[in-house]
Structure formats: structure tokens, C-alpha cells
């Protein structure tokens, strides 16, 4: 049954790639289109995961939850909550250069990690929230996986169409104008801070959705499952390697980086156990190095942003 194992593995990988692609598209709105540096992606991801888990999970004595709402409601809740957390942060920091946003988002991710780790009544601390409902979870293993993959791909397609539409709309053109020349855009009467806030919230909502998708796939969410630096970093490399400002590039980057990342795990699994712990950190070092190499040698990514295409397809203006 070798092929069945391979198929299982391929489906498993595809689900992860789909979820990461949604996260990378969220970042593409923030960074690719608007030039905002969100260094706390893992925070918004975690908010989405925990929100959906609390809304849909089973009741447990002494803990918030037990609403057992439909999963779809949980996912919408995840997006709303991630946006609500992003709002005050963006409101305060987006008047300034993105350096401040970077620091503030690191802070948010840190506080969220602390809450997830220490609040029994809300997140069950280190044990995390378990026994979450999973759509199509009652089917046989392979069919259940395939059905979940279908669901993830459906979400990804919706997100892609939505983001792509925004990229090509006059709104998208305005965001690029703000990104490329803030002073000129401001002199044309654009409200820079407000427009950036829109993009930041939009991206944060998608990150929340990504978190919720992962939580229901695993049927659980624990603080261990979200290493802030690694998660945030993987998504950044996916987008920059794939091509900032290009939505197909973001999806391609998610696939390439996730496959490489999983391969390195295969490689390090071959090592003797006493080196296995160190290997984990060597992998972290390598993704840091990979980011530096991409920034240095291929800053435009595999599929670079194509401003002519984005401008022509909008129909209006013709800039």
C-alpha cells in the first residue's frame, strides 16, 4: 500500500500549503500592496485559532466556551476577532513609518502568546483547547482528509478572487500609490493612515481565518503549536520568495517554502537523537539565512509584481 501512504502524505501537505497560502495572501495585502511590516503574524493566526475553537468547541467546566456553534460561524468569528485586535494597533501606529508597526505587532504576538500560555479559563494554558469539531471528520481517514482539502481549497479560491479583485480595483491602485510615494498620494487628498488601516485589518482577518482552518484541521490548538517566530517567518519567506505584490506568487511561495521546510524536517529526522534538538535550531537558522539571500539576490521574488497587468485589467483610469 505504498501509493496510499504517498497519497495520504500529499493530501496532508496540500492542506498545509492551502492554509499557508491564505496566510501569505493576507500578508500580501499588508506588505505586497501597502508596504506594512507585520512582524506578529503568528499573533493574529493564534487569535483566529482560539476564537474559532472557543465558539465551536465542547463545554468544559470552568472555562469559557461550550457554545458549540457551527464551524462556519467560528471561522467568521475568527476573522472578526483578528480584525478587532488589529484595529487599535493599526490606529495608533499606522500614522508613522512601518518600523513602529513592526515593534507593536511583535508586542501583540507576545501578549497573545502569554495569554494563551497562562489563562486557564480562556485557553486552558499549556494543554490547549482540544476535541474541536472538524468538518467531514466522521468520514474514513482518507476521504475526510480529501474533503477537508476541498474545503481549504474552496476558501483559498474565495480569498484569492477577493484579494485579486481588490488588487485590480481602483482601491488597489490607490494603495500602490500610497506605498510607492506617500507624499504624492497625500497631496492628492488620500487619507494615508486610514487606507493603511483598511489594508492592515483586511490582512489580519485573513490571518485569523488561516488560524481557524488549522485549528479545526488538527482538532486542537495549543501554545506549542504556534511558535511565533517560526510561523511568522515562514509566511514572510513564502511571500517574499514567491513575489511580493503578486497573488499567484504568494501561493507559489507557500507551496515551495512549505515543501522545502518539510524536506529539511525529513533530513533532520535521519540524524541521531542527540543531534535532533540542535537540528531544530539549525533549521531556524537556515530560514533566517534564506530570507537574507532572497532579499539580496532575488528581492522581487519568483513571480514579480506586474504593475502593467494590474493597471490594464481595472478598465478605468489607464495610468
Amino acid at each position, binding site marked *: 500500500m505504498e501509493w496510499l501512504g504517498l497519497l495520504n502524505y500529499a493530501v496532508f501537505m496540500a492542506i498545509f500549503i492551502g492554509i499557508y497560502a491564505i496566510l501569505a495572501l493576507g500578508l500580501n495585502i499588508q506588505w505586497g500592496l501597502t*508596504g506594512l*511590516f507585520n*512582524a506578529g503574524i503568528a499573533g493574529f493566526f493564534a487569535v483566529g485559532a482560539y476564537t474559532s475553537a472557543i465558539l465551536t468547541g465542547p463545554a468544559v467546566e470552568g472555562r469559557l466556551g461550550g457554545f458549540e456553534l457551527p464551524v462556519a460561524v467560528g471561522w467568521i468569528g475568527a476573522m472578526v476577532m483578528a480584525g478587532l485586535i488589529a484595529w*487599535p*494597533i493599526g490606529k*495608533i*501606529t499606522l*500614522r*508613522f*513609518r*512601518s*518600523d*513602529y508597526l*513592526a*515593534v*507593536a505587532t*511583535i*508586542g*501583540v504576538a*507576545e*501578549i497573545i502568546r*502569554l495569554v494563551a*500560555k*497562562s489563562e486557564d479559563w480562556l485557553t486552558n494554558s499549556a494543554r490547549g483547547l482540544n476535541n474541536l469539531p472538524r468538518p467531514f471528520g466522521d468520514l474514513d481517514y482518507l476521504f475526510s482528509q480529501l474533503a477537508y482539502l476541498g474545503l481549504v481549497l474552496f476558501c483559498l479560491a474565495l480569498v484569492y478572487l477577493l484579494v485579486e479583485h481588490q488588487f485590480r480595483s481602483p482601491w488597489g491602485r490607490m494603495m500602490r500609490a500610497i506605498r510607492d510615494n506617500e507624499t504624492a498620494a497625500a497631496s492628492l487628498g488620500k487619507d494615508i493612515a486610514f487606507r493603511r488601516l483598511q489594508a492592515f485589518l483586511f490582512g489580519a482577518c485573513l490571518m485569523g481565518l488561516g488560524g481557524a482552518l488549522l485549528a479545526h484541521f488538527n482538532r486542537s490548538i495549543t501554545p506549542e503549536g504556534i511558535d511565533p*517566530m517560526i510561523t511568522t*517567518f515562514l509566511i*514572510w519567506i513564502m511571500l*517574499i520568495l514567491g513575489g511580493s505584490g503578486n497573488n499567484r506568487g504568494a501561493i507559489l511561495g507557500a507551496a515551495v517554502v512549505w515543501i522545502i521546510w518539510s524536506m529539511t524536517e525529513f533530513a533532520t529526522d535521519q540524524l541521531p537523537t542527540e543531534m535532533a*534538538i*540542535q537540528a531544530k*535550531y*539549525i533549521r*531556524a*537558522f537556515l*530560514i*533566517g*539565512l534564506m*530570507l*537574507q539571500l532572497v*532579499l*539580496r539576490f532575488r*528581492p522581487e521574488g519568483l513571480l514579480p509584481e506586474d504593475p502593467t497587468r494590474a493597471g490594464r485589467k481595472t478598465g478605468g483610469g489607464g495610468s
Partner: protein
Amino acid sequence: MDLLSFLNFYLVPGIVLGSIYALGAIGITLVFGVLRFAHLAHGDMATMGAFLVLALVAGTGMNPWLALPFAMIATAGIAVGLHWLFYEHLRRRSAILTVIASLGVALMLRAIVQVVWGVDSLTYVGGIVRPESYFGIRIKDREFWTLAATVVLVVALMLFLGYTRWGKAMRAMSDNPDLAQLSGIDTRLTTILTWTIIGLLGAAAGFFLGINTELKSLMGWYMLLPMFAAAILGGVGRVEGAVLGGMIIGIAEECSVIFLPSEYKSALAFAVLLIMLALRPTGLLRGKVL
């Protein structure tokens, strides 16, 4: 709670922590002011400095305080090397790319520490240190030396910036980089000098944190938020502002355990950061806003 126990349990540790944050925040504020970006690897650079002292102590058996100057020089070398390898080639492009690169550097530095020294907590010297009592105020030797060394380093830096040729060049670059270059200041050398100072002070901050608490691979990363909060609270680009901000954050964090669960200590720095950005982004001493 009487005055003496407030002093002993909250104020003295607060001042010690504050001087550690102050040294760290000076580095943040110098990069922000002179080089004009948020250096997210600053905390992990401090970690590296702290572990280099440990390597010297373990390798040669020397006193950690004697090893500190060597580790500071080595960390300064690392800082200049990082600039050459990862930051310099981005200087003509959007400044935010350098910030992204610095987050990658933070991850790399941390990974090196984790591979070489592991993830468990370590100390320079074993055993329990008894505090000395001065009129009822108890101060440990290492706390005293931390404060003394901080004062020496800050005064030396202020004198350097105020009265030497290169110090003036740094201040000129901080005020207006184009004008500085036009007036014949070698901005490349000034940048390298800035990184040297940042490395020296960063290693000192990491060592003081390590000797007063313990060495952990994430110690510097967790200092990043308080250091940034201190730099912004004091006013970006202002060295005396960073010292003031560091002291306020350090004392406030130690006092916050009176009313906040201790695991949320770092939330305090975050709150200060957001409140300052919302109400007075120039900071207490009128710094820059990028």
C-alpha cells in the same frame, strides 16, 4: 508595606533592571536616530554578548567581569559584520527592508546561541549571593557593579558624543544625513562607528541581565519590547532619553508585580509603548518620529 521593604524589594531591583534596559535602549535609539531604522536584532545581539562572556568564563576560568570587555569588543565586531553582510546592501532601498532583514538576523543569532549553548538556563557562577546591607538597604555586589558600570558607560558615551570629532559626526548624521555628507563627513565610517558602539553597549546590557538573573537563549528577545518602549518613551535619537526611559520602564516593571500577575510584566512595556505613540510620539525629551 513599609518604605524599607519597598526600597529593597521593588526599587533597588527596578533600578538595576532599569539600567540594563537603559543600556539596551541606547543601542536602539542610536540605530533609530543615526541609521534610521528599527533594529529588531538588538536583543539577540545582547544575548550573544552575554553568552560570549560565558564562553570566556568557561574556557579560561576568568572572572566574568574581567571577561566582559573582551566580549563587548567581540560583539562590536559581530555588529559591524552584520552590518556588512546583511544591512549595507539594502541602504539604497526602502528602509523597511532593513527592518525585515534585522528580524531575520535576530532569528539567526538566536539559533546560533541555541545550537551552541542549548536552551536551558545557565549562570556565570554558581551559589547564592548574600546582599550587603547599607543602613537597611540591601544591595548585592553584582547589583552595585552593574549600576557603577552603567554610569561609567553612559558618561563615557555622552562625553564621546558631545566633545569628540567622531561623536559630533554621529550627531550630525542623526540630525540630517544629507547635510552631514555634504559637509564632508564620512558617513560610511560613521555608520561603522555607530555599529561598534551599539555592539559594545548591547553586550554589556546582555551581560548585566545575565549576571543579575540567568542566561537564556531568549533573554534578549524578551528585552526587545521594553528596550523599544524605553527608547520611544525617552524620545527617539536621544541618549539621555533612552536612559530616562529605561529607568522608568525598569522600575515600573518591578513595581507592576504589586498589581499585575508577574507573567504579564512585559505587557506593561507594551502598554507604555502604545500610550506614548498615541499621545506623544516624540517622547518625553522631544526625539524624532520616523
